[in-house]
């Protein structure tokens, strides 16, 4: 597959937490690059700093030092309001525990990021329905999350991430809360989305799942090492 333009470029990213008066270097000079259309997995044991990497990559947090360029835009010293806008437009999050709003229907949940883009209602509904169609759940659009199975909930979450047509899909252990068969279904969906041209980064501690990706990035003690397939 020909390499597209660079979507994510991280150079010497460092993040230090202060836990109980002790300095913890969650990320210690991490560097990596992810190109458009790539399917990348990030693997590492717990405490390796992969959540921190994911938070910074998803613009939920800002690095202490280093350079992070997302889709040609340098992410640094932005205000909370500006970061929210970037998250809204460029990032599609998929969480381990789905993180759907229980009071809203599946369609409502998928619409939510579009609401924050101030898209008019009619257009919003269309886009949300198109996203649900992509994950094969259009027939369940009026169901509330608790009326859906785990796999279906995760599909709704993926539809929500896709609705804004983001630069990158960021999945944090997307199969972690699912049984193995449903997990496989979700992975199959990710492969489909990848084939459709989406850039996907997902974090896992499961080697077998990580190996399904095109490229595997290993993280250990805050440092990044590339692993060829």
């Amino acid at each position, binding site marked *: 597959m020909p390499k597209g333009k660079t979507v994510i470029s991280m150079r010497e990213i460092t993040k230090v937490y202060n836990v109980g008066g002790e300095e913890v270097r969650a990320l210690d000079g991490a560097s990596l690059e992810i190109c458009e259309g790539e399917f990348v997995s990030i693997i590492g044991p717990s405490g390796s700093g992969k959540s921190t990497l994911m938070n910074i990559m998803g613009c939920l947090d800002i690095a202490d030092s280093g350079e992070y360029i997302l889709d040609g835009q340098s992410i640094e010293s932005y205000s*909370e309001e500006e970061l929210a806008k970037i998250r809204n437009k460029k990032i599609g999050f998929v969480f381990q525990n789905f993180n759907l709003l229980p009071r809203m229907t599946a369609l409502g949940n998928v619409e939510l990021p579009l609401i*924050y883009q101030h898209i008019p209602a009619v257009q919003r509904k269309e886009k949300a329905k198109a996203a649900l169609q992509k994950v094969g759940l259009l027939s369940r659009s009026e169901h509330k999350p608790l009326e859906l199975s785990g796999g279906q909930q995760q599909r709704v979450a993926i539809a929500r991430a896709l609705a804004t047509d983001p630069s990158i899909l960021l999945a944090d252990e997307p199969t972690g809360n699912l049984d193995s068969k449903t997990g496989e279904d979700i992975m199959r969906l990710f492969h489909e989305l990848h084939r459709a041209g989406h850039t996907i980064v997902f974090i896992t501690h499961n080697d077998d799942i990580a190996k399904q990706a095109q490229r595997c990035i290993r993280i250990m003690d805050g440092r990044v090492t590339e692993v060829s397939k």
Partner: protein
Amino acid sequence: MIVQSVKMAWEAIASNKMRSFLTMLGIIIGVVSLVVMVSLVNGATGAVTSEITSLGNDMLSVSVSDDKGVPLRLEDIKTLAQDEAIAQAAPSSMMQAAAKHGYSDAFVSVYGTTPAYYDINGLILAKGRFLKTVDVDNASYVAVLSHEAAEKLFDEDNALGKNFTVSGRNFIVVGVLEESDSMLSSMMSGTAIYVPYTVESRMASQPYITSLCVSAASDTDEAEKAVKDFLLARFSQDDEAFSIINISSVSDAMSTVTDTLSLLLGGVAAISLLVGGIGIMNIMLVSVTERTKEIGIRKAIGAGTKSILMQFLIEAIMVSLIGCVIGLIASWGILELVSVIAETISFKMSLGVVALAVGFSSAIGLIFGLYPANKAAKKHPIEALRYGG
């Protein structure tokens, strides 16, 4: 965005109806006490003011206690009435006496006066005529009866032209007044009969005028000044020799008192609204903590601080305003009920007090929603996402 925030706020309120209602209860009680108290005071004020006005709002009532050897006579009253600040003036001497007709008798107030009295006091005839100048000049034994007096002495329908006696003198009824619908004025006039001044003065052996009533040409204060100047000049500048009661100044004083009263009661009610506001803040703080996860999710998918702030602020204002509307409806019901019970007085919500309640409620929602909403907006997305549950 506002429309979406309103929708989100409504969903949040509707998802926990009992709690939302209990939160609103503080505002409901506050609004009800504000609206009902102010409306009751206003209604009572209106009733009392119209009672006072029915006594003759442009009327001055004068009584002379010390005539300094230069007592007032009918001619002096005529002179006084010449003043351009004064429309009319009439003596209003009064004596108590027993009236008799056949076997029925009544204790009546006999007013000796002139035709001008009719206009000054705003009397209304039911039938017959009022006193005429010739009656006064000739000291005729004619009388005009109040509705109550006519009822007591005669069969109401055919009092006209009949005779009755007061202190052994024979009077003929020439007119009957209409029944007064004002409580206060019917209490004041009661079983009154009106006879020519000259007749009453002879019966009471009081040849001088000690009390009179005056109506103002336009401004009662000017009229009061004219009467005062006239009497001061007459009674060697002694302002203790007479007293003037200005009905309009009585009603002015009355309205000052009731304004203060409604301000006071409104203030007390406003405090209960304030307490309601604190209730809203309390519940909103709980709600923000409970919905930490939701806030985290919203932030992760792109809700900015402003959107979150707006959402919670609108929720607080909405709770407050819904409470306000319920309160207004309840107040309306209470006032209707009170009006039915009170019969004569009708209590209505004025537009002003409704506007006050709505304005106050939104202000309270805004002020007490600001802190919880700000707390929600300031939550860090990562920590909020990690929040248990």
